[in-house]
């Protein structure tokens, strides 16, 4: 039983962690909670599965194109939606609505292109599972953990150890000051959105190789990513990773011992309790309104 719960936890938790990381990267540079994140994830997953299964493209090429789609969508979101609205008076409020609209539009667009049936790439990994103590550990779970850990490590290196990453950080700490010292604020914001898109593309690959995705599941990923970020706090990207595995462990335990219906109660209860009692999350900083 323990192995089953662990496998379920790491597989789901890795996707939540990647979506949470994508939120984190955008929040750090723009302060925007990008609710469309789940939409990029699902769009990427469906693109990969559709190209490989329906159009018979090579799997590696399909995954690459799916990730590219997520990168382009995220960068375009900043250029065409977030930036034009945020710069208007009262734009902070409107941008939330616009991102919800974008999530809805992405879902409908994915349903229109790829159809309304769930699509998956799970068949390409068939026969490559591992047996541990009589329990099957799917290769997709191992890929999920490796992709999640590698993404967090690379994102951390990018933000803290590269000159471009430091410029991104500078924009997040104060766009005006960053601009006065010559940081190209606009380009750094687009870059942060694109990197966030890359992460959601990888999350899409994990989803596609696992249980698959349906066009309307973007909202669910967006909500899980949000709760993961709230739990982990905005201080460190690694907080989102811990938050994701805590959430998915609780989800697996609730599903195993109680009933699947309690998962959504758990998610709401967790978010409400955290935001009421500990709004700064596990690791950090301010989430209160100024």
């Amino acid at each position, binding site marked *: 039983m323990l192995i089953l719960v662990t496998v379920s936890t790491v597989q789901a938790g890795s996707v939540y962690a990647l979506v949470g990381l994508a939120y984190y990267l955008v929040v750090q540079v723009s302060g925007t*909670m990008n609710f469309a994140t789940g939409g990029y994830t699902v769009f990427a997953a469906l693109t990969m599965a559709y190209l490989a299964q329906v159009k018979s493209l090579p799997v590696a090429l399909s995954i690459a194109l799916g990730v590219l789609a997520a990168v382009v969508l995220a960068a375009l979101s900043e250029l065409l939606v977030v930036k034009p*609205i945020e710069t208007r008076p009262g734009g902070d409020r409107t941008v*939330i609505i616009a991102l919800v*609209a974008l999530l809805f*539009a992405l879902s409908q667009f994915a349903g229109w292109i790829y159809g*309304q049936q769930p699509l998956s790439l799970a068949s390409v990994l068939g026969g490559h599972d591992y047996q541990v103590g009589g329990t099957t550990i799917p290769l997709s779970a191992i890929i999920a953990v490796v992709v999640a850990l590698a993404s967090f490590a690379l994102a951390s290196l990018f933000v803290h150890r590269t000159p471009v990453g430091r410029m991104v950080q500078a924009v997040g700490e104060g766009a005006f000051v960053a601009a006065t010292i010559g940081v190209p604020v606009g380009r750094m914001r687009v870059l942060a959105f694109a990197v966030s898109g890359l992460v959601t593309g990888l999350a899409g690959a994990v989803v596609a190789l696992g249980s698959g995705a349906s066009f309307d599941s973007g909202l669910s990923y967006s909500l899980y990513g949000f709760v993961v970020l709230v739990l982990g706090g905005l201080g460190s990207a690694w907080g989102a990773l811990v938050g994701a595995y805590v959430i998915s462990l609780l989800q697996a335990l609730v599903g195993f011992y109680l009933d699947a219906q309690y998962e959504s109660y758990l998610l*709401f209860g967790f*978010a409400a309790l955290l935001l009421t009692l500990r709004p700064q999350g596990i690791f950090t900083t301010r989430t209160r309104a100024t």
Partner: protein
Amino acid sequence: MPLPKLASVSPPGRLGRPDQAAALRIGRSLVEPVLSLLAVVLILAWTSQSLLRDNYLLLGVVYSFIGAGIYLSYVLAGELSLAYNAYFAIGAYASALVDTRLHWNQLAGLPIGIVVSAAMAIVLHLLTRRLSELYLAAVTLLFAQAFVTFLANATSLTGGAVGISGLPPLTLFGQELSLHQLMIYSCVLLWILLLALGRLRGALLGQLLRLQREVPQAAEAVGIPTSVTKMIAVGGGAAIASIAGCVYTYANQFVLAGSFSVQIVIIVLFVPLLGGALTPWGVPLGAGIVVWLTIGLSIGSGTGQLIFAVGILVVLLLAPRGIFGTLRALATQGSSAAARRLRARRSAR
């Protein structure tokens, strides 16, 4: 020297005489209710010819009530609560349960739904009152999702996934109402509500709501109890949305958990934004567009919803004041340009 009479020193007004100016004001104040009532009558006349049209109107009325709730809470007060499917469901189940459990007239569900929805919205608001609206949006969306799960699983109360069916038609003054008669009453109620919201927007409370939305710190500094005004808006919005649920139950004579999915919130959230903040009459306009795009426009599965979603983004980007706001701005620009041309012609002579 005797003092002149007050009337003779007061400004005469644009028409030169105070009684004419007052008459003009009264005339202007009647334009909105008269035109909107005319629109209601025309719509009801159009739907009277077919049951299908009445069903379109039912959906439009339901979306309009929920949209009117969002107009009060979000457009006027800036509080982005997204649990509107829950408030909609509370009204619907309250109307069904008073019939099946208490054997009362289903109308008794209306005040119960209003009170329970408002109370629930206020509790959610209090949970996140110290946080930015972004968190209110996300937490209420999580609540919305959990509430749908509850509706589908609390079989003993809600009937679970199969819901509650076999409800009798609504009776009013001892007479069973047909769908069209129900639509007449619902439209009149919606008309009164939208008129009241329009008046509220210009009244003191409406101005306070808009002030605390735009400049919350300044509003608090001048002594406006913003926590109270926000609660009024959030509770009032939920109460209005619950009316949609009641109308839905009266019309269908059943309640299904699947009718209250989170997608309803996502769709109806944009209804008041299409019309714009300038007037609540944008709400039924937005609702009509949604019904037409999602059901009336038969151009393939889901295509109408895609067009709607893209349309919303276009409105948010290019016409942030909504359709009515943009039309008014264009009209103002047009009349200013005409006035400038007239002045230029006169000076040329």
